């Protein structure tokens, strides 16, 4: 980002500059800005009390709580799993490292509905593995466990993507210095590696959190959409909208939009602050 800024800027003096900018605004306005605006216009159209009422309903509250809870656990699990994976990939050589490296980034490209379907076909009561666990009473699908599985899968690359570049570039000498001074592996990890990962972990957590909060495609397949038990906020929005309760759907949509704005601006703030240090 800084590199591009420091390049000598050649400004084309096109005669239709004003027109081009207006066209851009004309396109972006209905494309990006108006749809987001519509949520808030609808949310407040019938007065704020109706909005609050729709939001404080038992179903809406549960759905928001569940989504935040799942996002939190997903971020936690993936920060451990992602850091471990990145550490292994940065430090060790092992067979099938390359194909595995490609595989772990695959969730970015797989449609989330496909993730949901495949989890059902694996862990569902008639699934490949699930059929053996079903008689034992272990049924992860259509429960919070199933939602977590889906979210960890779908958001896995975000934490990895944030942590791995930092670990890859971390000077081995620091680590070796720590060892020579007599620090154990755990101590080295805790005092040397982890502090340098702080920024990356924070960014990765926020990205994971945001994606988990809004995850729909995989969740709708594995959650069972059970009100007050497995219905997350995006599922609540979809169900309520389908049932014609647009107010209820919209209130929760507005909250999700605000939460994502907050996460986005925190991310922006953090990355902008860290950028100059690295350059």
């Amino acid at each position, binding site marked *: 980002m800084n590199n591009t800024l420091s390049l000598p800027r050649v400004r084309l003096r096109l005669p239709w500059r004003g027109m081009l900018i207006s066209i851009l605004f004309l396109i972006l306005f209905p494309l990006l800005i108006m749809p987001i605006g519509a949520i808030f216009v609808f949310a407040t159209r019938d007065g704020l009390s109706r909005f609050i009422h729709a939001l404080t309903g038992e179903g809406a509250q549960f759905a928001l709580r569940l989504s935040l809870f799942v996002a939190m656990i997903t971020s936690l699990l993936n920060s451990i799993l992602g850091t471990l994976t990145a550490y292994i990939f940065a430090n060790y050589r092992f067979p099938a490292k390359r194909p595995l490296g490609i595989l772990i980034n695959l969730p970015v490209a797989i449609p989330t509905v496909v993730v949901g379907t495949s989890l059902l076909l694996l862990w*569902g009561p008639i699934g490949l593995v699930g059929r053996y666990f*079903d008689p034992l009473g272990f049924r992860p699908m259509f429960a919070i466990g199933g939602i977590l599985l889906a979210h960890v899968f779908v958001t896995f690359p975000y934490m990895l993507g944030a942590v791995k570049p930092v670990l890859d570039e971390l000077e081995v000498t620091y680590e070796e210095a720590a060892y020579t001074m007599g620090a154990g592996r755990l101590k080295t990890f805790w005092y040397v590696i982890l502090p340098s990962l702080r920024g990356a972990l924070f960014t990765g957590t926020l990205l994971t959190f945001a994606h988990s909060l809004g995850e729909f495609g995989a969740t709708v397949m594995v959650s069972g959409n059970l009100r007050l038990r497995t219905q997350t906020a995006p599922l609540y929005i979809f169900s309520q909208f389908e*049932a014609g309760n647009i107010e209820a759907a919209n209130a929760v949509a507005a909250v999700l939009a605000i939460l994502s704005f907050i996460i986005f601006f925190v991310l922006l703030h953090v990355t902008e602050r860290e950028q100059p240090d690295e350059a």
Partner: protein
Amino acid sequence: MTLSKIIAALCFLLLIAYTWPIVIPEAGRSSNTLVIYGFSILEEVVTAGILPAFQKRWKEQTGQEIRFYTSFAGSGTVMNQIRFGAPADVALFSNALDAYRLKGAGLIRHDWTASPHKGIINRTPIILIVRKGNPKGLSRFQDLERPGVGIVHPDPQTSGGALWALLAEYGAFDLPEGGSAAAAREGMLRLWKNVIVLGSSARAARTQFEMGFGDALITYEQEAVKDLTRGKFNHQVAVPDWTIYSEHPAIAIDRNVPPEKAPLVQAFLDFLWTEEAQKIFVQYGFRSITDERLDAENPYFSTVPHPFTVEAFGGWPRANADIVEGLWRNQILEEVHR
């Protein structure tokens, strides 16, 4: 730096405090919970009418509180969720076909047709909802085959109401004097060329109609009656002279009901056929299955001149093979897309 750390810590604590209740109900699950999966249009009557009434009865009889968990979607969606492991104790389907499928998959082991009224809890005819003033003059299924008519239809692959609609369309062309299976095939083909939107459930199709799509919505009479009762119906009902009564079964899912919970599940099912429950159904726009006289309590029901039921086609398994699969999926759907 320290300020942002404090803010971050506060946010985190807030998050924990807010989401904490999620952990609690998972722990406190007992035999006094009832998980009900139902098809779309039952949502209001079940959550606002039937469940509170049953809860009261159960408390009077046993002194226990029951906690309900519910999920509503298209009947086919619900059936598939249960088949793939959704923890439903009781399923309320739009038609018996979904129950036959779960029986085939081994999730239902008893014979629900031995229950009162063959397991059917209520019924409602399939009708048309048209725009105010009926500008296109639509009232029979035959009117829907005219060029330029836009139809909003629920999706037969996920919605039970859509399957009833298919039978209603078929019967309207086939059953009257002079009708035939060939006429039904031709008529349905032209009608399906006019379908502009498929909704995943009857309720979803209704929402799409509300959003302004189409001239006619094929759906349950209950959809209209429920809103007429509340005085907020902005469209018009058109009752075809020949149409079907859709009949909705309630069934315990044997695989998911442990023995200690069976009495509660049975009590709930029995409750659905009591006069109290039937009156609630009527109040929400369904017609009673136990006593037609109860229907008089809702003034918004229409008269159907020539109603028929799925028995006109030999019951659900046969109607599904002949009309839904044989005609609609294998012939009409193929030709419409050509």
